[in-house]
């Protein structure tokens, strides 16, 4: 519990991170680039949100981005991860988030198939009897998809297309005695699932179902000696949990339950300050996923020079304020 082993942390390498994200789409000479095409739209959302938080929203050309997003849309309204990939909830949510970020819902209306069709695609994935959501027509159900649906539909102003109460009831069934939530009823609490359930409840205006005292305690117990946060008891710390845990603490107003300075230090030590990007733990390979969640974590921790992030939508606060008119 002492910090004698903790190395001095470098400052945030803003321009290295911007360049790292810009380079992501120029790595076509790498096998990995082709192996991850099924995540292209998600990756674009991660990278673009990171750039907005870094104050460089223009670092990826806006018009090209919108064209690419629209090229991923299917007749049924859903979006695939890239042209030629099947529609899925996760890539559809990413598409909506990117269009929100770029203030491009008009383009969706004029050149794409329109908001209503997207809303219909998502709403059709709800199981009307259980309230849960599937990821696609093949039916895998998960609270991640429920959150994704609430996130995208509320941004589109179409939340009324689904049975919110049924979905909320399902979430309450995923609650555990420790105040946390699991991936399905009976599953152990997991920081990622807590974020999805809590954010969905927050969007639905139903935080009253949350046992905030127990949840706050469980979340605070995720911080380990080095300052990082883990996702479950007795697991290793990981930068992406800076986001799942911290945003959840923010939603229930308890970010003071952890040591913020130590967490800032941990995230900063996970940077690759030379070639940019952030990794899960210090010294590991960086990727855009951990880069985004390192930055959103720092943003919630009020690190200077970063745009404020919205803890529920994982978008810049300014974007969410504009879209929701608040």
């Amino acid at each position: 519990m002492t910090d004698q082993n903790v190395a001095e942390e470098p400052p945030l390498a803003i321009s290295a991170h911007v360049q790292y994200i810009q380079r992501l789409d120029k790595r076509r000479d790498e096998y990995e680039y082709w192996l991850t095409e099924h995540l292209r739209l998600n990756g674009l959302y991660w990278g673009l949100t990171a750039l907005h938080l870094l104050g460089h929203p223009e670092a990826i050309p806006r018009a090209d981005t919108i064209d690419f997003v629209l090229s991923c849309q299917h007749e049924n309204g859903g979006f695939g991860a890239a042209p030629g990939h099947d529609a899925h909830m996760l890539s559809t949510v990413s598409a909506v988030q990117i269009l929100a970020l770029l203030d491009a819902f008009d383009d969706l209306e004029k050149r794409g198939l329109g908001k209503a069709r997207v809303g219909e695609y998502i709403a059709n994935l709800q199981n009307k009897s259980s309230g849960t959501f599937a990821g696609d027509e093949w039916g895998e159900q998960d609270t991640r998809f429920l959150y994704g649906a609430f996130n995208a539909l509320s941004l589109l102003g179409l939340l009324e297309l689904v049975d919110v109460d049924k979905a909320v009831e399902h979430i309450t069934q995923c609650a555990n005695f420790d105040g946390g939530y699991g991936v399905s009823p009976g599953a152990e609490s997991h920081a990622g699932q807590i974020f999805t359930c809590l954010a969905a409840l927050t969007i639905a205006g139903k935080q009253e179902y949350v046992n905030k005292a127990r949840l706050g305690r469980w979340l605070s117990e995720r911080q380990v000696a080095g300052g990082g946060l883990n996702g479950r008891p007795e697991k290793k710390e990981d930068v992406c949990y800076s986001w799942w845990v911290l945003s959840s603490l923010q939603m229930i107003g308890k970010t003071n339950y952890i040591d913020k300075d130590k967490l800032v230090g941990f995230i900063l030590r996970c940077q690759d300050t030379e070639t940019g990007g952030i990794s899960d733990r210090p010294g590991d390979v960086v990727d855009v996923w951990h880069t985004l969640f390192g930055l959103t974590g720092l943003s919630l921790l009020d690190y200077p020079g970063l745009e404020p992030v919205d803890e529920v939508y994982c978008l810049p606060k300014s974007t969410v304020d504009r879209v929701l008119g608040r």
Partner: protein
Amino acid sequence: MADQGGSQHGIARTSRVRTEEQKQLEQEKIRKYRELEEQVRSHVSQNHYTPEVFQLTSRLLKLNPEYYTIWNARRRLLISGLLSKPSAGSSPSRASPSSSPSATTTTPSAASSSSLSTATPPRPASPTAGTSGTTAEADEAKDQESDRDVLKSELNFTIPLLLDSPKCYWIWSYRLWVLNQAIERLPTAVARRIWEEELGLASKMLSKDQRNFHAWGYRRHVVTQLESAELDGSSMAEAEFEYTDKMIRKDLSNFSAWHSRSKIIPRLLDERKADDAARRAFLDKELGLIRDALNVGPEDQSLWYYHRYLMLNLVNFVGHPTIAPAFTQEDRVTYVIREIEDIRELLEDYDDVQLIYEALFDYTLHLCQLEERQPDPEERVELAGWLKKLMVLDPMRSGRWADLERDTGLVAEVAALER
């Protein structure tokens, strides 16, 4: 979204300088991959649902098991090619759609997939139907046999992929879809055997990584199916309870196993038709088990979470099933006091373990709550002492201790300790 593919976990950063030769090799690899991808996509988009295309998807998925669109193509290939068509009049499906996890009420691209399935591809696995003398029943039996072989081969196909990528959602999800096909298409006894073997796989995955929550979730799902009427099942609570026992014995800090145990207990006791004495004995045994574990590992969060679960059974007993619902107020108080005393003893060997002080603090408040009273002056001094200890031992969570101090009105007492 929670963790998904494409993100790197636990891979060391190394400077990635490639030689000219390595670069060329990589280009060659990319060329071959994209060629294969292009082949599969063009066949699929033209509804060429042939065994050759099926083989191509196998090759591609071995290279990239995260490629969900190809898993979907494979499902369509099976439905419209290799698996039997549901014959008109007969009812091969015993599965009620609403209870099958793969059955969503509406399928958004139902239109597209049904148009695909009208493209009748050859079924090389089964001989031409309509040979003289065969009855419809014999046809159905043949269909089922062939379906069984196809589904089993699909299950075998995914095993090495799962062992390589145990956290890949798409493989788990595909596997479940195949298993659900078994329920829909095969005689119950045959489908049941397939699902029973699946429990073996879940165990195998958990023995490789005891905390893999995909595998725990998968196991829970498989058990639920095996218990269901669809598979002529009955409760497996006893067996699953024993399984958690085995996992805990292997590693006390396996919170996943403790959690699973906490979820099985209420049902287990109901099914045993446990009377009050049996329930009391059960609780005693659980408390004994966790106390022994805490004696050797008082720093282990997993153990304390389970201990808290047991304590909640005593103090928070309204509105949900608990281990000992018939306990009197006196019983509950006696139990809580005994736990507090036992934990106090832990301090003799471990006087700087934060979780012990937390437990003492918590459970003393539980006791007051049970007795519907405020802490007495003596308790207040003790509570303040423990809280002070927590502040010293764990400054990272000082905000939480400050909240506790405020909410319990101990500010003055803690301040007094500081002087």
